[in-house]
């Protein structure tokens, strides 16, 4: 089975600082990591390969510094990676990113399954997966928590608003996975070292036929501004001489606040 798994580098949002005065968020120097849910997607891709045989190609649109994250997914068990780091890809919106990845997947050749995370940990728009599916004219299954493949079809269990659904579709298909699907492995030292010997392919926008595509600086969706979201809370620690007094004080405080019926 040929599996393509998409992943990206995300900012470690816990480390983002806020300038309280100007309400600006400070992204400079914030460490990056692989987007959390992408680890689940990569893990699932590798498990499918281990179960059904085949090859896993990991694809990312990320700056050159993301080579660290590329090594991580190779260490988890992907056979090769495609690292699209040309400056012409920078600041692409979801649609642009999907066009880039779809073009890369076409260049990789035959594939059976494309896996993505349900969304990225820092932006969580959940758009790139479905856009890739449309661009490649694939059926799509989202929020999958379990995947099996048999007789050229993929069967998945997914969570919709009102409960769990069993869905199936013919291959090739795109599936976005939720974090409930698996626990991602931590690569061993041997696997990490072997990762440096695995191929990493790179293609420019021209090589992907994207010279006049709405990607990078020509993306349709543009960011006008980002403002920190600050909610001021009182942060009052309820005191008391005994735990029962603390409980009483809390109850009385909430009553005074007028939030009880």
């Amino acid at each position: 089975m040929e599996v393509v798994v998409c992943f990206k580098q995300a900012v470690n949002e816990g480390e983002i600082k806020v300038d309280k005065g100007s309400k600006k968020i400070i992204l400079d120097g914030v460490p990056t990591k692989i987007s959390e849910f992408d680890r689940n997607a990569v893990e699932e891709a590798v498990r499918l390969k281990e179960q059904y045989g085949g090859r896993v190609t990991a694809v990312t649109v990320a700056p050159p510094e993301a080579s660290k994250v590329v090594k991580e997914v190779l260490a988890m068990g992907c056979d090769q990676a495609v690292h699209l780091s040309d400056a012409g890809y920078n600041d692409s919106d979801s649609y642009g990113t999907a066009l880039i990845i779809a073009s890369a997947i076409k260049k990789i050749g035959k594939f059976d399954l494309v896996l993505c995370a349900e969304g990225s940990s820092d932006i969580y728009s959940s758009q790139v997966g479905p856009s890739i599916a449309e661009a490649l004219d694939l059926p799509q299954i989202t929020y999958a928590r379990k995947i099996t493949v048999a007789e050229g079809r993929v069967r998945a269990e997914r969570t919709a608003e009102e409960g769990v659904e069993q869905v199936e579709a013919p291959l090739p298909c795109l599936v976005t996975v939720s974090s409930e699907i698996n626990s991602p492995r931590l690569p061993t030292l041997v696997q990490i070292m072997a990762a440096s010997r695995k191929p990493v392919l790179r293609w420019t926008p021209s090589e992907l036929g994207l010279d006049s595509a709405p990607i990078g600086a020509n993306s349709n969706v543009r960011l006008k501004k980002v403002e920190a979201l600050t909610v001021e809370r009182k942060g009052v620690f309820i005191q008391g001489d005994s735990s029962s007094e603390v409980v009483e004080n809390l109850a009385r405080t909430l009553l005074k606040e007028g939030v009880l019926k």
Partner: protein
Amino acid sequence: MTYSEDFETEKEILKAASQISGGAPVAAALVGQEVRPRATELIEHGADQVFVAEDASLAQFNVETYVGTLESAAAQFTPAVILLGATRRGRELAPRLATRLKTGCVADCINLRVEEDQLTMDRVVYSGKAVASLVCTSRPVVCSVKPHVFEKERKEGRRGEVVALDLKVRDPRSKVTGGHERPTAKVNLSEAKIIVSVGRGMKKKEDIALIRDLANVLGGEVGCTRPLSSDLGWLSEEHHVGISGMSVKPHLYLAIGISGQLQHVVGMRDSRVVAAINIDKDAPIFAASDYCVVGDLYQVVPALTKSFKQMLNK
């Protein structure tokens, strides 16, 4: 043009549409089987035109057939903006529709406004640390709008046109082969005035009874963090508060045994008052709370329930 497979959400986004249309006509899409009778209600909530797509093959939501249907509606109405409800289904439909129409898409909008002739869309980013304002230069602009952000508005007797969509529904490749609704009563956290929410401080599923007791005394609803609904399945998705779950705005939010990860806190940030109980004095939840109690929930919660019972004469 608006669409949501959730009827209530569609009424909300019709309000959003009227706020940005600047007087231009607003259309709503109605898709399914035998759905035409609902058109009047959509007109009363702000639709000038309702495009009805009725077919047995559309009875169940399927992203492939619904994308084709909305594409047909868009071809007929030629909207400048298409608003979809940001339900799970809406969130997988919107980007696919946008890509079909070769245009950009913005997900989970919490605010829409027209600035300098441009539609500006706000959404939460970085797990709740910031709000990004975005514009789209291509047409139509496609975006999904978060449910429970806009208030639907009904004007009885409002007039509008109902148009039957002429369409050829392509056979979808994906099929739903089964499913089960979680056997819990319908819960609507978005309307709740009091929410008692629980996280991983809970040691086992049966202990949720403690939380339910407190919620019942207060006349509130039970909420939870993602691990309890999605990973452990102790509570259904409807109880899940957070960036990939519900956004709530109760008068009181009680966060019990919840560490306070950003992804959860962003879902409850609009609460009027937040109180938290956690055994760890350094838990991040306390920075996001008005009132903080450091203690073991297994002692504090029953005691609090008793206290409220007496106080509220229940």
